[in-house]
């Protein structure tokens, strides 16, 4: 009774009927975005990934058009211009860049004259074109004096009108041209090999991990056998069966290359397949194939991408190794790996021969890795903001 009395204090006018409004708690406030749009947004927010993307596009473009920037060709040999250092118009005036077409090295001797004599002998006896800077006066004892000699080889060879932007190799071929043609070859090999690895590896690992049991252990046995045979043996067989060339290199790379991917995908799937969402999908009658492609694979996309980003450098270096044992690119064609390989032998004396291809290969790798990271974050819903 008392309660009723309390209510009586409220004026009746205040009690108005509730106006029916739409329920907004479930409403999406922003404009609707699909998963892919979200992913794209996250990706483009990542500065490093974007820069890498731009760099990679430039590298790809240059590998297509770079060789035509000058009149030199892949196999344009001329021993009279072998081992020329890099020289670039305009930039040649900035000495520290090392693009001014000079060779510099340090020479020892008992006295300064002695060291100078060594330097002159080393540089074709063309004294007029050699600048000597004394580093240590020396006291007449063995190799106590040290000079730094700078050899203006373009002047000495009367080639002042010539510019080899990245120098020439031991056979006098233009490194710029060869480097971009090599990049082209390396990129083709690596991306095709990586793609094949990805397709086979994901399919194999996915099926093996998801179905488990007998299928899994059978498929794992096959992998064990394949991995158990060293690559070299497989490659040896390739030498006999196939003619050396890009296609056989790709085959050699993929014949065992997909295994790493398959193992990783299997490991991930094993981990994920007991999660609730998979159970839910199965309970709802989703088919095995659909469960793998719709539910499991998107969840392992990150690790697949990262692994692919590692397949690419692996492919590039494995190709270099193949060149080394005779199944690689057939000369005079070259790949980045082959260029580094041959430049490495003279890297203390002509560092530019290995420096530019090595830097380029590193740039390509770093770019692939950072893009991989960017994609990984982009595909991860938890990273979307």
């Amino acid at each position, binding site marked *: 009774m008392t309660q009723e009395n309390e209510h009586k204090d409220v004026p009746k006018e205040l009690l108005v009927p509730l106006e029916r409004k739409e329920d907004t708690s479930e409403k999406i406030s922003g404009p609707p975005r699909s998963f892919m749009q979200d992913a794209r947004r996250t990706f483009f927010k990542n500065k490093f990934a974007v820069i890498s993307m731009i760099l990679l596009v430039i590298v790809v473009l240059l590998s297509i058009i770079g060789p035509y920037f000058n009149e030199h060709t892949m196999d344009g040999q001329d021993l009279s211009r072998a081992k020329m250092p890099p020289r670039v118009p305009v930039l040649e005036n900035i000495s520290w860049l090392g693009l001014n077409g000079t060779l510099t090295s340090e020479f020892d001797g008992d006295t300064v004259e002695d060291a100078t004599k060594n330097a002159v002998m080393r540089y074709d006896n063309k004294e007029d074109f050699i600048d000597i800077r004394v580093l240590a006066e020396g006291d007449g004892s063995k190799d106590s004096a040290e000079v730094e000699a700078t050899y203006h080889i373009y002047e000495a060879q009367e080639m002042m009108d010539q510019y080899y932007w990245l120098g020439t190799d031991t056979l006098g071929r233009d490194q710029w041209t060869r480097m971009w043609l090599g990049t082209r070859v390396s990129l083709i090999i690596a991306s095709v090999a990586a793609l094949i690895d990805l397709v086979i590896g994901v399919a194999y690992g996915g099926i093996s991990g998801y179905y488990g*049991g007998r299928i899994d252990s059978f498929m794992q046995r096959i992998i064990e056998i394949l991995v158990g045979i060293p690559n*070299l043996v497989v490659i040896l*067989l390739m030498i006999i069966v196939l003619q050396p060339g890009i296609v056989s290199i790709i085959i050699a790379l993929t014949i065992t290359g997909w295994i790493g991917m398959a193992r990783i995908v299997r490991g991930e799937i094993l*981990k994920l397949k007991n999660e609730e969402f998979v159970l839910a999908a199965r309970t709802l009658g989703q088919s095995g194939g659909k469960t793998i492609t719709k539910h499991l694979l998107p969840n392992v996309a990150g690790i697949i991408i990262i692994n692919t980003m590692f397949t690419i450098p692996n492919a590039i270096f494995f190709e270099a190794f193949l060149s080394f044992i005779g199944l690689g690119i057939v000369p005079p064609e070259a790949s980045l790996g082959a260029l580094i390989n041959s430049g490495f032998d003279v890297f203390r004396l002509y560092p530019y021969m290995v420096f530019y291809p090595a830097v380029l290969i590193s740039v390509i790798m770093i770019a692939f*890795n950072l893009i991989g990271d960017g994609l990984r974050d982009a595909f991860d819903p938890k990273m979307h903001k």
Partner: protein
Amino acid sequence: MLRYILKRVFYMAITLFIIATVSFFLMKMLPGSPLSVENKLSEAQQTIVLEKYGLNDPIPVQYVKYIAGLVQGDLGISFQFDNTPVTDIIMARIGPSMVLGAQALVFGTVLGILFGLVAAISHNGVLDYTSTIIAVLGTSIPSFIFAGLLQWYLAVKFEMFPVALWGTYEHTILPTIALLIFPMAISARFTRTEMLEVLGSDFITTARAKGVTEFGIIFKHGLRNALIPLVTVVGPMAVGLMTGTLVIEQIFAVPGIGEQFVTSVMVVDYPTIMGLTLFFAFLFVAIILVIDLLYVLIDPRIRLTGGES
């Protein structure tokens, strides 16, 4: 558990048997014989040399003899080294490779995990990018360039370490550093990816909510889960490292097994190639078994399905 292991060992034997068979017939398909090293033998002599290596028998007979030899641990006689059993060659060369490989693996993965951890914790921070760059450089620059630079600067220029050769512990340092770059980079990458994944998952949030210390979260909850995929990568890497890498062994003049394998391939010394192939295969399947057992230890969600049905 024991039943599972026994079963796996049985599978291992089958795997090795198949590898032995496959590699035997692959070798028979390839050209070359002990005769190919020189070509000045008369017909009569060729028969005798072939007889010595049992190569006059029909191939199935050779195969049975080879497998029978294998069972007794006999891998045959090398073509390259007169009258030297392949097992002797392996024993003579495996030591240095094992030492280098084990050192590189241990230091490489431990450093790699640390780099990966640091990167994951400071996600998108300066440290993340620094360690990512280190990892990327590690996988991007060929090991022989590292080896060459190390040799040039640390050994030739600053004379801190021996230039090359094998003998004392000092000799192992430079090749180990050159070798560990790759496993380090790989483990750093995987640790980072996995750590990020794990640290973003619900159970970590729960643990945080329950007041678990950061240290506990990272090491007890995070790292343990993050290491699972790493184990898959480290296994094969371990075999690769222990069985030696040609280039490093060549640059530092280490008398290792990788170098021997490539030499054998170059001189088409089949018994040695097959012997080493089987030896590598054995190491590999053994390590795979260990990894699968490790899986069970690290991740309780994975059950030993192999033992059932």
